[in-house]
């Protein structure tokens, strides 16, 4: 009888283990399928849901069935409270935030993941088994996974917080050639410190626990210094890069706990994130190395252009010009988004269409603050998907266009990208606005764009400026056209 009980216990023991591993397998498959579906507009939303289901499954089965050295998960009450708090806060922030603030939000959540990974390493370090250290010294895969998880997670956390601050306009850039050397120096110190800890040999872990806090501090400083000099237009690339960092940090946890869901999920994001980073760089015609070490903007300050005069246009002239055009192309930029003018812009577009004018939108791949950001913003205002044309497809059409209306965009229409090899944005594909018959630029003032580069499209003979807040100007313009 006793025997039977032991056998059943053993069976149930392996059964829960099997269920856990099976659910991790299903979760991994859902992550992969979800990510694949996310890369197609038709299936993207379902893909996101699939990945979320995989995550919920992995979390629930971990709480129920996970065992470490035969011990089930304890502190379940606290864990559930923590999850509830995280869910409420995360859900509220995610639902409330404005679409224009999307990039910094992604950065914020990314930082949370990085911090979580770093905390795990922080707690696992004192628990490194004495037997392991006695046998192999500190030079082993377990210690390496802990240290790398800590460093990568901390860098991702600190860097994401700086990126968040920058995109939110709370933190400025530090652009100094000195930062490059400071960063290289810090990186050497971080790597050196990891090597130092791993070569300590047979030590007592509790005697060297303080070392992990020193490493944490250095990694945080490096994360800050890493993002500090990177400016303006390159921030989305940095967020994408930090995103893949956090993926790798999560995968380190997978090594630590021999956990396949963390391993596949983390590495998948790590590699996909890296490719995404490279794709974004390509869209802006910049190399990743350039983004990381080269200070954007600032450079090429000595450029001299034949500066013509700025010519303004009155609202009524602009209204007449638009009203009697056949083909109008709107080039929206971040200025449109911050003014929350996407709805009134769509009104203008509908009004013109009702008068027989053909209206299209030229969407630059990096319009807004992130690739695809502008599409999200215009979709929010119900602008039909078919009217959003990617810049490379609309450029051949621009010479036949009567008016190009540039609303709060700057760098993406800057001809310097085509003409001026000394310009930091030289080679970046642009919306070739100057090819159109007339150009109207709506701008708040003569300030430079996000990349802080002079834009001599504004001095072009065909260009007329319409100064003011995009929303107010558009509203006035719509009223003016209605009266014609």
């Amino acid at each position, binding site marked *: 009888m006793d025997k039977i009980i032991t056998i059943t216990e053993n069976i149930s023991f392996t059964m829960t283990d099997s269920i856990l591993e099976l659910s991790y397998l299903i979760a991994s498959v859902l992550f992969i399928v979800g990510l*694949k579906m996310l890369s197609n507009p038709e299936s993207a939303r379902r893909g*996101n849901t699939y990945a979320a289901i995989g995550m919920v499954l992995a979390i629930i089965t971990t709480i129920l069935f996970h065992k470490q050295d035969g011990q089930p998960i304890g502190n379940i009450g606290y864990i559930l409270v923590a999850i509830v708090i995280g869910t409420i806060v995360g859900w509220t922030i995610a639902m409330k935030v404005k679409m224009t603030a999307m990039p910094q939000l992604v950065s914020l959540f990314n930082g949370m993941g990085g911090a979580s990974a770093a905390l795990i390493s922080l707690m696992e370090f004192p628990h490194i088994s004495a037997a392991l250290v006695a046998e192999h010294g500190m030079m082993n895969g377990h210690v390496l996974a802990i240290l790398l998880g800590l460093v990568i997670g901390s860098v991702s956390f600190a860097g994401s917080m700086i990126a968040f601050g920058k995109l939110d306009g709370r933190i400025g850039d530090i652009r100094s050639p000195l930062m490059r050397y400071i960063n290289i120096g810090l990186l050497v110190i971080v790597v050196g410190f990891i090597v130092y800890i791993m070569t300590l040999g047979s030590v007592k872990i509790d005697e060297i626990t303080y070392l992990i806090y020193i490493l944490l501090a250095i990694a945080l400083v490096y994360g800050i210094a890493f993002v500090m000099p990177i400016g303006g237009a390159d921030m989305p690339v940095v967020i994408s890069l930090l995103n893949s960092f956090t993926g790798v940090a999560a995968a380190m946890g997978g090594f630590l706990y021999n956990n396949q869901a963390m391993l596949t999920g983390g590495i998948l994001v790590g590699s996909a994130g890296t490719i995404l980073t490279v794709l974004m760089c390509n869209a802006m015609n910049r190399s990743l190395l350039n983004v990381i070490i080269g200070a954007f903007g600032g450079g090429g300050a000595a450029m001299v252009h034949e500066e013509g005069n700025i010519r303004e246009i009155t609202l009524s002239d602009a209204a007449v010009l638009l009203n009697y055009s056949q083909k109008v192309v709107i080039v929206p930029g971040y200025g449109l988004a911050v003014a929350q003018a996407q709805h009134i812009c769509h009104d203008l577009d509908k009004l013109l269409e009702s008068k027989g004018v053909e209206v299209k939108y030229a969407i630059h791949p990096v319009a807004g603050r992130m690739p695809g950001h502008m599409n999200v913003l215009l979709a929010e205002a119900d602008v039909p998907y078919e009217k959003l044309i990617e810049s490379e497809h609309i450029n051949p059409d621009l010479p036949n266009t009567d008016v190009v209306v540039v609303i709060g965009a700057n760098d993406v229409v800057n001809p310097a990208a085509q003409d001026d090899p000394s310009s930091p944005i030289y080679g970046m594909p642009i919306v070739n606005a100057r090819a159109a018959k007339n150009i109207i630029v709506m701008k708040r003032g003569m300030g430079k764009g996000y990349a802080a580069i002079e834009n001599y499209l504004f001095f072009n003979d065909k260009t007329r400026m319409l100064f003011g807040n995009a929303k107010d100007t558009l509203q006035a313009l719509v009223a003016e056209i209605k009266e014609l």
Partner: protein
Amino acid sequence: MQEILTYFFEYRQMIFVVVLSVFLGIEVISNVPAILHTPLMSGANAIHGVVIIGAIIVMGHAESTLAMVLGFLAVVLGTLNVVGGFVVTDRMLDMFKKKPKKETKN
């Protein structure tokens, strides 16, 4: 050399998973149109929230007060990453869905 080979053998299964996942990640992403870069980044961001499993495990075996506090914090932050990430991605993609649309492929 001997040591490296020993480590490789010891961790061979995980190394296989890692190497294959790297290629899988590259393969899965490589055809994405630029308009989906932002939602994709956001979705991937939510997926690395899988780090929460580690946080749950470490919290589940925490004994000292310090470990409890840190573990609690790790679970909260991990949940923020997961929930915030998925919800924000869904919100973004919801906007693409309102109107029937054509495929845009580069």
